[in-house]
């Protein structure tokens, strides 16, 4: 035990000696959680749209006003031909064009039916569907206003309640995701170079000839990063609650415990990479280039996992941050307790055990 502590102290010296890296270790998560907590959203606001009003009658003007009233759209009025629409889209700013055909109001009142055309620039399918939906909803609302439901017999009204996130804020979805991403990647990144670095600088030899158990050498490498990550975790949680206004509806102790679990999983993953890699460069290639995008996509906060083809859904099960993301949402937002998240926690524990055993197996107590 005393030996182990001595080794841990050595590792702390390593970490604290490099002030720049240390600063980055604390600065990175803070900057990222603030930046992405505020900036990431799937909401689309203030999209420039063009209204081609060939009808020029009171109703089409009223609908135009409705479209411009909220903060979804910035309305420009312009009559465009087919070709001109294409040029406008090519330039890239305008995403939607609303066309009122001639005689709109006349058709509406005399034939009881009139058509509005929405032409969307669907090169970004996500934006296209979202703003088409916004516009459709605004027009439908207007139409409901035309014929108040009391006068029309046999009306079905829907009373809708948005649960967990009544204001439909983007942060509720993205903050847990960014937490998972930042914690996982930073821990993996930092530990992944730790062993390989000693190999590269040649000090590994000295460690190996010491009477100290080689497995303890590995563990002692992870301890400083564990401590730093726990400190980071506290900062991240404080920021997301007080700055980003995230609720903590469940038990904070539980949240802390599972976060610590994720950190340990990430550290073991980093150790494994460090054992397998032959140089700092390849360790970093694997942990950054290899993991950044897959972690981001398979965590599930960007793209719903249930939409993916089933082989990819299977792959997503291998990503620890996916399970952590589910847990954080359950505990922070839904306010659930341990009885509802024990399965996910168990999976994380299993992963950790597997990674640790594997990295101990892969650790070669001999040089080449």
């Amino acid at each position, binding site marked *: 035990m005393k030996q182990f502590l001595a080794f841990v102290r050595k590792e702390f010296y390593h970490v604290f000696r490099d002030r*720049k890296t240390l600063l980055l270790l604390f600065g990175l998560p803070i900057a990222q959680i603030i930046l992405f907590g505020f*900036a990431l959203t799937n909401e689309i606001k203030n999209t420039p749209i063009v209204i081609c009003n060939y009808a020029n009658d009171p109703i089409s003007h009223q609908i135009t006003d409705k479209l411009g009233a909220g903060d979804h759209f910035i309305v420009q009025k312009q009559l465009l031909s087919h070709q001109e629409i294409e040029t406008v889209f*090519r330039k*890239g700013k305008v995403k939607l064009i609303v066309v009122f055909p001639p005689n709109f109001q006349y058709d509406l009142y005399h034939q009881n039916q009139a058509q509005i055309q929405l032409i969307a620039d669907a090169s970004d399918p996500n934006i296209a569907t979202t703003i088409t939906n916004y516009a459709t909803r605004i027009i439908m609302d207007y139409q409901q206003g035309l014929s108040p439901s009391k006068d*029309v017999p046999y009306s079905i009204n829907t009373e809708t309640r948005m649960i967990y*996130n009544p204001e439909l804020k983007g942060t509720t979805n993205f903050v847990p995701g960014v937490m998972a991403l930042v914690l996982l990647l*930073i821990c993996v990144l930092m530990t992944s170079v730790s062993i390989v670095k000693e190999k590269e600088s040649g000090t590994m030899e000295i460690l190996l000839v010491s009477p100290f158990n080689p497995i303890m050498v590995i563990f002692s490498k992870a301890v400083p990063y564990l401590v730093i990550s726990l400190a980071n975790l506290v900062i991240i949680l404080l920021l997301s609650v007080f700055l980003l206004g995230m609720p903590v509806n469940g038990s904070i102790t539980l949240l802390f415990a599972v976060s610590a679990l994720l950190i340990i999983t990430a550290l073991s993953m980093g150790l494994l990479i460090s054992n397998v890699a032959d140089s700092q460069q390849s360790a970093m290639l694997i942990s950054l280039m290899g993991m950044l995008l897959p972690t981001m996509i398979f965590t599930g906060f960007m793209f719903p996992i249930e*939409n993916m083809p089933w082989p990819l859904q299977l792959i997503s099960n291998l990503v620890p941050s996916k399970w952590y993301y589910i847990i954080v949402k359950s505990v922070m937002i839904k306010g659930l307790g341990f009885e509802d998240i024990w399965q996910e926690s168990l999976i994380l524990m299993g992963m950790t055990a597997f990674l640790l055993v594997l990295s101990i197996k892969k650790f070669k107590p001999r040089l080449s």
Partner: protein
Amino acid sequence: MKTLKFLLRKEFKQIFRNPIILRLILIIPMVQLLILPLAADYEIKNINIAVVDHDHSPYSQKLLNKIASSGYFRLTNFGSSYSEAFQLMEKNKADLILEIPSNFERNLAREKNEDLFLAINAINGTKASVGGVYLGQIIHSFNQDIRQDWLPVNQTSTPQIEVASINWFNPFLNYQIFMVPGILAFLVTMVGAYMCSLNLVKEKEIGTIEQINVTPIKKQYFILGKLIPFWLIAMFVFSLGLFVVARLIYGIVPLGSIFALYAFLALYLVAVLGVGLLISTYSNSQQQAMSLAFFFIMIFLLMSGLFTPIEGMPFWAKWIADVNPVTYFIEVMRMVVMKGSGFAELKNHFLIMFGFAVFFNSWAIWNYRKTS
């Protein structure tokens, strides 16, 4: 010029000496380009509905059939109480709860008016609002059907506005054609920026930089010697992605000018490699360079509009997106591939990217000191 030739030969020898790294540089991006676009799909479908039907009448059944046949929803559970359904929502088994009150059909017929109750899991706001709109449309059309059944013909007609929507450039809302170019652009950026940021600092760590410093090599040559090999590698990775993975696997052929695309890529890579070099000149160890590179790459990625729209960001974040070179490259990729844009539409992009390239590289050269 001759100096540069020797420097290049040295750099290439160093790169090719480590076949593992070379393999990683090629394999990691290609595997990701093969897999990730399949997963990156925003289309909202398979929304799970838990139904609490207190009515069990022919009409409530009709409504449920209509919902189920729409293709967007899956009726996963028919519970007997709201609290039971709510538990399913807590466990992520249901995204939406539809409660049909008892005597739904009778009240509708007698009192001409009836409420349905809808609860939506809104943690993912977009999914919630889109799901709500879809279901609202289905219920609305169901309502119309009922009126047509029950009312005499002349009374059915209230003024109807029909909304017809058309999607240009991508009529079937295919996400792959949108995601593949963007993801490829980002992967190439990672290859260039990471490798470049590590390379110079490695010489610092091993100490070989001293040997370069005592030679009369001019620093711009030295920097250029570091830049060109990675420029070529990144070009190669990009072509592999565009002509092999994107074309053969996904069947994506750029509509616009490939020449314009490559011209822009050439300029863009100079800018991105400049960022890598800059990081390298500011770090003393590979670990430092790595964490700095990680920080910037992550910001470049999330603020580039690759996954989340820039349109929704607050103004200060838009400003960051505007000074992010990756934003422009992803935009150019998508414009050329999907909209068929050429040099004429991309003039501004070229000018801005030229500015970035000059700025980052001169900063890097300025900051690289031969004497410490």
